[in-house]
């Protein structure tokens, strides 16, 4: 603790801290920032001072919930301390205030030790009171920039900036909290620098975006009503009501409470997450904006989408709706640390035409097919709804029906000029699209039954995420040939792929 106290004493103000750091570590950073004409590029900045308060209100909520639960149990069991009402209230209030002060103090200490710096090459973030961490994320490896606004922060006009770099889970750089306008400005600056874009003036221009699609509320509600969770919920409730009325067993109703609440919470979460979903395209990438309570603006620069999956559950078929998911390195498989949000979701529900438009947006190479867009969408259409070998698809042979009697006709793969299309599923239809230059590695798998039937499964390995393109039960010989051909295609596609800094002109480099 003594060293951190000394550190705190030394960094009396942000300006002094900036000078100290510049003298030691930021010398080269300052030089490059000067070259690009950025006024504060090399200096160390702090997060907004309101951060400790915004961060610690959760502690209060948890404490309040615990207290409420305890009171509830006491009321039911008739137990609890025999204290007069007002004294108990006083103690509870005291504990609450104490916890609030403590958690704000701890957060304030953490805030004091947190500084960040942006220059032409990287974002650097220093954090930690006892265990110091200095993280540096290279801007040319930036995979996505998210601006997240939890409800309270949003009401007060603050936002969190998350920079995703491809380093597995927990590798993102989180700047929480900044003023909303500052967060936007920083995002524009990072994206412009990541693009290798030279700009005039002190501020990076905000890329103008064009709205491609907005998911209407009725469609979203419809898609949720036709989702698995909602149907399970309804069936469960009906069954419960019937048993309760017929058998007069209200205990059953009480026992199922948590399960019903869980399912309802799931549907509610999907709703708040997907409400007012908007997809736009800008010079710095595809931009998603969504959320009812907690809003999130995601920007995925061009060429960062590793794979796309289109899914249509059976119940959505009448409406012709599709769900789109993407693999972006750094987003990972969702789950832990994402706060219940799945950043890999591209569109929660889209019509066929919208799905195709968004697909062409995130895999722009698809549009560059020499035959023109007509044949491309014919390919995609066969991938979405077709079966068998029409249109040059390599499909599972008839003998695959022994292994997959329902869906064997749908297993198939098509190699186009720029991407690999993999389709599967007869009830829940799926189509995966992987640009050739994004293929990580390839696998061929064969089990004992497949071997007897002369079949094999081809898998394309993508970065962690919801999309795992696998073409099952293909003819073994064709599968091996496909593996060879795909390895070759991926190689040549990589050789001609664009630069990591997508706006940079190779002859006119702006950095030193």
């Amino acid at each position, binding site marked *: 603790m003594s060293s951190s106290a000394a550190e705190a004493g030394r960094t009396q103000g942000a300006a002094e801290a900036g000078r100290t750091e510049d003298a030691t570590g930021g010398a080269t950073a300052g030089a490059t920032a000067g070259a690009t004409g950025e006024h504060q590029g090399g200096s160390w900045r702090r997060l907004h001072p309101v951060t400790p308060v915004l961060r610690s209100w959760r502690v209060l909520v948890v404490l309040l919930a615990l207290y409420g639960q305890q009171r509830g149990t006491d009321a039911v069991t008739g137990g609890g301390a025999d204290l007069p009402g007002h004294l108990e209230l006083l103690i509870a209030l005291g504990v609450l205030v104490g916890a609030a002060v403590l958690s704000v103090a701890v957060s304030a200490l953490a805030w004091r030790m947190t500084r960040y710096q942006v220059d032409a090459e990287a974002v650097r973030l220093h954090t930690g009171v006892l265990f110091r961490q200095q993280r540096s994320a290279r801007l040319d490896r930036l995979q996505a920039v998210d601006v997240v606004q939890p409800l309270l922060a949003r009401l007060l006009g603050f936002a969190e900036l998350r920079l995703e770099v491809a380093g597995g889970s927990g590798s993102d750089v989180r700047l929480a909290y900044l003023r909303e306008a500052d967060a936007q400005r920083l995002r524009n600056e990072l994206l412009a620098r990541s693009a290798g874009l030279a700009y005039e003036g002190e501020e990076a221009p905000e890329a103008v975006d064009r709205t491609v699609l907005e998911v209407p509320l009725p469609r979203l509600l419809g898609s949720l009503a036709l989702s698995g969770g909602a149907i399970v919920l309804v069936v469960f409730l009906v069954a419960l009501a019937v048993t309760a009325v017929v058998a007069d067993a209200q205990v059953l109703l009480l026992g199922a409470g948590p399960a019903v609440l869980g399912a309802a919470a799931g549907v509610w979460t999907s709703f708040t997450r997907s409400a007012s979903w908007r997809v736009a395209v800008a010079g710095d990438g595809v931009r998603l904006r969504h959320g009812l309570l907690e809003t999130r603006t995601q920007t995925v620069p061009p060429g960062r989408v590793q794979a796309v999956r289109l899914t249509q559950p059976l119940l959505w078929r009448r409406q012709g709706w599709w769900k789109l998911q993407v693999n972006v390195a750094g987003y990972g498989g969702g789950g832990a640390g994402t706060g219940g949000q799945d950043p890999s979701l591209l569109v929660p529900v889209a019509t066929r035409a919208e799905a195709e438009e968004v697909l062409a947006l995130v895999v722009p190479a698809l549009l560059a097919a020499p035959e023109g867009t007509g044949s491309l969408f014919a390919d995609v259409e066969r991938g979405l709804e077709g079966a068998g070998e029409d249109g040059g698809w390599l499909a599972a042979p008839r003998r695959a029906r022994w292994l997959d009697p329902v869906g064997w006709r749908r297993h198939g793969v098509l190699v186009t000029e720029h991407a690999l299309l993999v389709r599967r599923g007869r009830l829940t239809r799926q189509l995966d699209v992987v640009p050739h230059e994004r293929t990580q590695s390839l696998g061929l798998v064969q089990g004992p039954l497949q071997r007897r039937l002369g079949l094999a499964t081809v898998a394309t390995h993508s*970065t962690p995420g919801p999309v795992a393109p696998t073409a099952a039960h293909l003819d073994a010989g064709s599968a091996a040939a496909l*593996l060879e051909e795909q390895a070759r295609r991926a190689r040549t596609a990589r050789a001609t792929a664009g630069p990591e800094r997508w706006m940079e002109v190779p002859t006119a480099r702006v950095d030193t």
Partner: protein
Amino acid sequence: MDAFDLPDVAWTPVSPRLVTARRLALALPVAVPVVGLVVLGVVFGGWWWWAGALVWLAWGAWLWVLQGRQVRAVGYAEREDDLLLRKGIVFRTLVVVPYGRMQYVDVSAGPVDRWLGIATVQLHTASAGSDASIPGLVPEEAARLRDRLAQRGESRLAGL
């Protein structure tokens, strides 16, 4: 035609010492229950203890024999632009890892491995799905492969 025998590919086998390492790893989970069952048979009597021990022993023996075949089925091949790796007899897999997609290479060896003089080389790409580990390499070959892969990866370096 066998899909897993690609034309013009010379597969390099791994060291037979891997068989010993795997059998040693097998010895404990087989021996402990057998000894336990035999002891129970002596103490309480009854043929079923002995039958159980016999079944367990037979299963262990089968696994013992199987290791030899499984290790013979592991092979790798360095091609100009990618590394091929195959494994398995009943469930067979073949993985193609392009050098340019490689993020880093691990060489690891446990105490038994070191005693026997073998090591495992594992290639990591940005994908969690590409399981490209080559077990049972003699240390010299492991070091050579590591350096060669790193060098080839660098000359074909690409982003994600």
